[in-house]
């Protein structure tokens, strides 16, 4: 008995890293298949793509009630911009340069808070909704039904959603950026009274257009990660309705981690040797 449990433990110790590796390989294969099926999807499923774009922008079900994912992403970046502006003002007036707060707001909102929070908001709104949708299709055997009708489910359900996410992100990101900048303005001009002229002078002096383009690249990288992870967990959901809930939870956890790591790497690659910020010209 004793050595049987010992051998079972040994077996588990040996196989569990292998299983993890197996799961990672499967995910990699899945992502490879998604990328590989992009041209075919673009050719064949334009209509479904358009429908998904509309659905993601406006939100489906309960999300539509509050104005869709656009409003949620916008409100999160709005409040994050407000926090950045408030902290920027308080810290800079600590060392006597409170009127430079718009500079800090422009720097933090454009570079940090908008892309990061937009990534988080995307993961939890569009991403988690996708997992829930595809997961419930999987457990109610709709995906099997598609395959029986010889509709390639990967292309029809997964690749279309990844592409739709990539297209929807552009207007969403613009909206989110504007919401963040609006929050900077409202907080600094109306709450802390730094003066509208002072705000626009320092804000536009140091708001580098290239930063906004870089942040857009960051957001594109994040949306690829978010949509791939969330479609994977939905596509491989199992274990009844409770399993779909589990899959949504697990997908949110891994996509949040993935988003942050990708964002850090992309930012370091973009900014490390190429600083767009020059105070002294």
């Amino acid at each position: 008995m004793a050595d049987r449990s010992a051998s079972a433990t040994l077996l588990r110790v040996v196989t569990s890293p292998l299983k993890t590796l197996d799961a990672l390989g499967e995910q990699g294969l899945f992502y490879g298949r998604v990328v590989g099926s992009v041209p075919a999807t673009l050719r064949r499923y334009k209509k479904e793509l358009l429908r998904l774009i509309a659905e993601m922008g406006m939100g489906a079900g309960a999300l539509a009630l509050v104005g869709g994912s656009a409003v949620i992403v916008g409100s999160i970046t709005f409040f994050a911009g407000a926090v950045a502006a408030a902290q920027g003002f308080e810290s800079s007036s600590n060392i006597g340069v409170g009127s430079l707060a718009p500079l800090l707001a422009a720097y933090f909102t454009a570079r940090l808070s908008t892309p990061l929070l937009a990534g988080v908001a995307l993961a939890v709104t569009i991403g988690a909704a996708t997992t829930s949708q595809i997961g419930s299709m999987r457990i109610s055997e709709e995906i099997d039904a598609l395959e029986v009708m010889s509709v390639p489910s990967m292309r029809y359900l997964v690749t279309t959603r990844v592409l739709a996410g990539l297209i929807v992100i552009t207007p969403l990101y613009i909206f989110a950026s504007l919401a963040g900048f609006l929050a900077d303005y409202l907080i600094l001009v109306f709450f802390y009274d730094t003066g509208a002229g002072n705000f626009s002078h320092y804000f536009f002096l140091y708001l580098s257009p290239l930063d906004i383009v870089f942040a857009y690249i960051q957001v594109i990288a994040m949306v690829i990660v978010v949509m791939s992870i969330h479609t994977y967990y939905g596509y491989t959901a199992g274990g009844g309705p409770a399993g779909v809930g589990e899959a949504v939870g697990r997908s949110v956890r891994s996509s949040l981690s993935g988003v942050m790591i990708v964002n850090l790497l992309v930012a370091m690659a973009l900014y490390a040797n190429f600083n767009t910020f020059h105070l002294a010209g």
Partner: protein
Amino acid sequence: MATGTTSVLARPLKPLGGLFAMSLDTLQAMFKRPFQWREAILQMWFIIRVSIVPTLLVMLGFTLLVIFEVNLLLKDLGALDLSGGIAGIASIQQIGPFVTVVVVAGAGGTAICADLGARTIREEIDAMMVLGIDPIQRLVVPRVIAMVVVAQVLNFIIGAGGLIGGYFFSVYLQGATPGAYVDSIPLFTGPAELIFSMVKALVFGIIAALIACYRGLTVSGGSKGVGDAVNQAVVITITVLVPVSLTITIVQFAVL
């Protein structure tokens, strides 16, 4: 017509009222003996287990990115000696609690909501009520307590990790002086700021746990129900917590 208007108003307001009613019930049940120690400790372990890896990765991505980019700005100003102060602001005052929000809602909240939602659609909750067991006292109270404790622990981990990680970033990658880094931390961040950071984590933990439990216990509607509930729980929590964070920040500046 009249029913039309009431239903338009009732759709968003009913869940809100339900959430507040459940919060009051939870507050009342919190002081009812016996307290479910066993469930609370098991839940703490469960929430820590699901959220420790996302915490570390999100901290790595979020806090360190902020420190990295602020150091670029400081370098240009010739004030890299202040990098420790910025690391303190980032990891203790602002980004730390923000990361706690993201992790508490995205990892802990989703796990709690999926767990309770699964129990609800298997009618285990109804069975408990038939047996005369109050699900609020037995399930919700221990989860709220567990979430609050875990939020504090995570907030400390993120704060400490941010300061240590910021040290490596600033000193080894960006050329700040080690002594100046350590010396400038207390410039912006003191015990009072740390207490506000803990208050933030406390409030976030309570709100996230209540929303997750409420959405989990009110799951309905077929196979899509649980997935949608988990999705809504995390969306609602993050959307609520970001303004809450701003409010506490502004109160903090007004008080200190």
